[in-house]
């Protein structure tokens, strides 16, 4: 690193001195002591634990991580397990819908809010408050609303609309949409806040120029403003995406993976094999696959964002 810039103008030629080793430890000692938690977190948790997990995913560990090396056996078994495959496809389906709808709804809400409306802060407060609640609370409320007999479906049927059907939570083919409704309720307000910040960072001159050129408003939003918000969009995609991969609490609270295994997700698979299935090797293999997924998403982003010379994060 070139930036071992020492404050207060002290010399930096560490390695040429005879007391180099002592200086390496003692120089700037308080800062190094202060950084111990960070260094420990990085080395032990983020690097150490990850490598440990990857290594033991190649063993046949059952109740304790002591098994012997079995190569890719756990992975073969993983992809031969229907529950895992269902989990993966659920995550892909839910993830794609959630990402698209969160961005679209967030953008629409931000545009609506940005129209110099009255009660702006009231509307913003209403849209963002679900984000302050936990996924457990979110899941349980929607579980009650979607209760087929006493929830929305039952109510509307009682009120005379007998053909009304809203049994997504109990319907294996629709349960992902039930998750989606709850997930969007929780997260779109946050996306709106991001997008609103992006909209408001666009210079007024751009709008004036577009108006002068007679470009319709919707066109200006899509072809001019949206591309200018690239930074915000990338941020939003990364945050929403890493949230989707972690999807766990919401499923536990709303459906607990049901009906059957139709709303299982990878994070839940990992958890169940590690802590209640007594098959650690299998859980670790699944966790490693989750890591791989994140890396596949993250590496292109990191390359685009910080590619070449490391820009300031």
């Amino acid at each position, binding site marked *: *690193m070139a*930036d*071992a810039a020492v*404050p207060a103008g002290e010399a930096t030629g*560490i390695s040429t001195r005879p007391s180099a080793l002592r200086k390496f430890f003692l120089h700037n000692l*308080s*800062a190094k002591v*202060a*950084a111990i*938690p*960070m*260094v420990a977190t*990085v080395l032990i948790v*983020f*690097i150490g*634990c*990850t490598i440990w*997990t990857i290594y033991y995913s190649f063993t046949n560990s059952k109740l304790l991580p002591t098994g012997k090396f079995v190569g890719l056996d756990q992975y073969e078994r993983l992809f031969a397990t229907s529950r895992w495959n269902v989990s993966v496809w659920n995550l892909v389906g839910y993830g794609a819908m959630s990402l698209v709808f969160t961005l679209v709804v967030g953008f629409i809400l931000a545009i*609506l*809010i940005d129209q110099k*409306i009255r009660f702006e*802060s009231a509307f913003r407060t*209403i849209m*963002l*408050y*679900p*984000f*302050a609640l*936990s*996924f*457990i*609370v979110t899941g*349980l*409320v929607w*579980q*009650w*609303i979607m209760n087929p007999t*006493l929830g929305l479906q*039952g*109510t509307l049927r009682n*009120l005379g609309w007998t053909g009304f059907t809203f049994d997504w939570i109990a319907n294996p083919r629709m349960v992902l949409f039930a998750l989606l409704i709850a997930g969007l309720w929780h997260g779109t307000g946050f996306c709106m806040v*991001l997008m609103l910040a992006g909209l408001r960072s666009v210079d007024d*001159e751009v709008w*004036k120029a577009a108006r*002068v050129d007679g470009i319709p408003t919707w066109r200006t939003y899509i072809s001019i403003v949206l591309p200018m918000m690239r930074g*915000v969009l990338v*941020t*939003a995609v990364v945050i929403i995406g*890493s949230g989707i991969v*972690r999807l*766990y*609490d919401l499923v536990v*609270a709303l459906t607990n993976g049901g009906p059957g295994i139709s709303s299982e997700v990878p*994070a839940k698979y990992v958890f169940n094999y590690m802590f209640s299935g007594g098959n650690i090797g299998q859980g*670790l293999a699944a*966790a*490693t696959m989750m*890591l791989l997924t994140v890396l596949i998403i993250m590496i292109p982003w*990191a390359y685009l964002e910080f590619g070449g010379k490391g820009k300031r*994060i």
Partner: protein
Amino acid sequence: MSQTATMAGSPSVAHDDVVEARGPRPKPFFTPKKIMLYTALVFFSLYYLFPLYVMLTTSLKTMPEIRFGNIFALPQAPNFDAWVKAWTSACTGLNCQGLSPGFWNSVKITIPSTIVSIFIAAVNGYALVNWRFKGSEVFFAILIFGSFIPYQVMLYPLVMITRELKIFGTLQAVILIHTVFGMPILTLLFRNYFASLPQELFKAARVDGAGFWRIFFEIMLPMSLPIFVVALILQITGIWNDFLFGVVFAGTQNYPMTVQLNNIVNSAQGTPEYNVNMAATVLTGLVPLTVYFVSGKWFVRGVAAGAVKG
């Protein structure tokens, strides 16, 4: 628009208006566009408000009223019986103590975790900005990228580490885990904040002979109240809402409120009492909601600050 050339950059567009008119033309409030706009806003607001309405009304109803099957109806005789039951005697399996132990566990987890994680991150951010040492930026970069690793990847080794430390299944373990996983975002927050402060302050204090801790406590801390508020909001809501770490590391005796809530609702035996369930749900949401409504703009700033890492 024909006269584009003359308009570039000039804000006063209305050349062809009547001479005396100044300022924008007063617009009627009920234009079709406005009506559509507010209809859309109200429509979306209903989506966001409906669950809150359902939660509150259901929690104030009696079970016969709920079985009648009208989720929209207001409670006929609002009463807090379900709230009392949710707090004191709702059952999770054989254990019928209600949510209150979970509430206190969450308090016992949230307060120390918040304090410890913020303090460590503040000192860390300060060291990263003003006292860089060889490799500090590398560690910071890994820290930020590490925050994207799914927790499930590190969960099992962390269980083993906390077991080795003899703290698995205790409050200390949860506090440690929250401190570790709160570190990336909080460090980023403080680092960016301290970097935005004028460097001259730090240099002047250095020249006057103040050291690492003295500058931190006497100069940096007093100036960083806004970022502390943001970090506080982020951590209190985040830790209160956590489920995964609580269920893995806390141990049955120390389950936080979210875990107990889920147990009360999803593993209850016998006929479900929806009013008690909803009362318990409201009670669990009350702390973060209070933080949200009290902090107002600060909350927005907090979530936005959490997002600027891009």
